[in-house]
């Protein structure tokens, strides 16, 4: 994961710490001394029990939070600059679609804020809708779509400006199991086609293993990285991958890493699915 002169690392984190309410009696060490480098095109999942700081780490990369110490570089630029230049797109557990805007106008939002003219915006948004296979739903309102479709619109919106980096915070957490697996497969296809780097926060071990090149296992109090597990299930993962012994092997590895944390910290909300 070393950077070359031509292409900077997608994300480069050094000595990152975040303490909420620093200096007060209710101070919480959300993250302590995190180092992490993510190469362009990589798919990285952050997994760990509640309170391990995975969402905090994602928000520090997104510059939605300021670090207490340490640095975050996105695309070789400071995180604040990267945010201003829309170098990343973001998707959350709640799709966060604007219910008063049609599907296509929701996708246009980031482009609108970039100052694109209407025709260019519309053309790109329709292109993104085709990418997430919702070409026929451009003029629908968000509340007319199912949860899975809404999440696809949210992904289309996050990718509309063609950012090199996609940050996702449990985007499939509210979906049923079948839809969830379907969305995972589609996300992989979309990212391969657009060669987008992804940082993906999840509670689900199989989800992390299926999607990722690397699974970052984190532990709480204080939040830190305890183990990084490389996964190589190949580029053409499909439904059979979910039944391969290699897949189960990696799930076991991640589970054991998490169990190590649980033994130390007591049981926490890890979904075993």
């Amino acid at each position, binding site marked *: 994961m070393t950077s070359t002169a031509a292409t900077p690392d997608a994300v480069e984190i050094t000595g990152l710490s975040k303490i909420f309410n620093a200096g007060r009696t209710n101070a919480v060490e959300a993250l302590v001394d995190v180092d992490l480098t993510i190469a362009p095109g990589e798919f990285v999942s952050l997994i760990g029990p509640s309170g391990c700081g995975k969402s905090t780490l994602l928000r520090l990369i*997104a510059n*939605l939070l300021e670090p207490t110490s340490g640095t975050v570089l996105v695309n070789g630029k400071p995180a604040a600059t990267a*945010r*201003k*230049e*829309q170098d*990343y797109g*973001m998707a*959350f*557990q*709640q*799709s*966060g679609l*604007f*219910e*008063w*805007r*049609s599907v296509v106008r929701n996708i246009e*939002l*980031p482009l*609108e*804020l970039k100052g694109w003219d209407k025709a260019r915006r519309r053309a790109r948004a329709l292109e993104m809708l085709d990418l997430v296979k919702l070409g026929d739903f451009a003029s629908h*309102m968000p*509340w007319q779509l199912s949860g899975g479709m809404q999440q696809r619109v949210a992904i289309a919106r996050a990718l509309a400006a063609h950012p090199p980096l996609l*940050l996702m915070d449990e985007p499939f957490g509210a979906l049923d199991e079948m839809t969830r697996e379907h969305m995972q497969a589609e996300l992989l296809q979309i990212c391969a086609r657009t060669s987008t780097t992804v940082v993906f926060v999840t509670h689900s071990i199989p989800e992390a293993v299926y999607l990722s090149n690397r699974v970052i296992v984190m532990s709480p109090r204080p939040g830190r990285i305890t183990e990084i597990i490389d996964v190589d299930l190949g580029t053409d993962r499909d439904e059979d991958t979910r039944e391969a012994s290699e897949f189960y092997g990696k799930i076991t590895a991640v589970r054991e890493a998490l169990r190590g944390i649980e033994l130390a910290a007591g049981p926490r909300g890890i979904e075993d699915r």
Partner: protein
Amino acid sequence: MSGRLRRAAMFVVAMLLVVAGWEAYKAVGPATGGDVLGFGILPRTNDQVMPHVWSMITGLFDPAQRTGGQTVARVVLEGAWYSFRIALVGFVGGVLFGMAIAVVLSRFKLAERAVLPYLVISQTVPLIALAPLVAGWGGKLQIGDWVWPKWMSAAVLGAFLAFFPVAVGTLRGLKSANAASLELMDSLAASWWRTLVVLRFPSAVPYIVPALKLGGAGAVVGVVVAEISTGLKGGIGRLIIEYSRQATSDPTKVFTSIFGAALLGLAMAGIVALVDVALMRHRPKEATS
């Protein structure tokens, strides 16, 4: 369509029930009033106090002056139209002012804590006391060739009652934008102003619509009361006063002016309903009020 038809029918039925109730009490109630547990709360039912509904309606077509001329209905309608225009100016002014206040208060937390109590207190000042003051101040105002018209005082008082529910409703609405959407706008490096226009304001619409209903009613009350207490001629407020003075000679007249005031309120409610439909057109059905 059938739903709309049914609602119209229900409105007519409700009107008929009110008329029936009035006439029923008039038929059985004590002519000289009555006591309940020692309190004289039962109204007298004689024609002086409670005229028949049909005599109120025929009263509409009597000449307004003893010397003849225009019918009462014509005078009442013209008065209602005059007051309606003033109330509309007051309403629009109050809505704009209320929204502006809400935007400022939502921007600065300190301002909210400092100003909001005063807004609440402002609504406890009796309008009757405020009306002559506003008329007095307005009368002294002159900017270049522009002189403060008398009706403007009534419009200001209408705005004074209209702005408050709008300010409170909008403020709540601006804060109702959901956290994920706000974070999204943040991640897109959207400015405060763009976030206001693109996210916070549209999120506030379901809160603004019911506030507009209250504001519309407030504007009407404010204007009618201001007309009465500043003695502004031409409006429905003045007619109510005039006609209630004539109650001894013609008891139906004051009721015709109340019809006018009701019409004025209905017209305002109609306008607000149109705004409601326009604003909530694309919203999920369960979110409409």
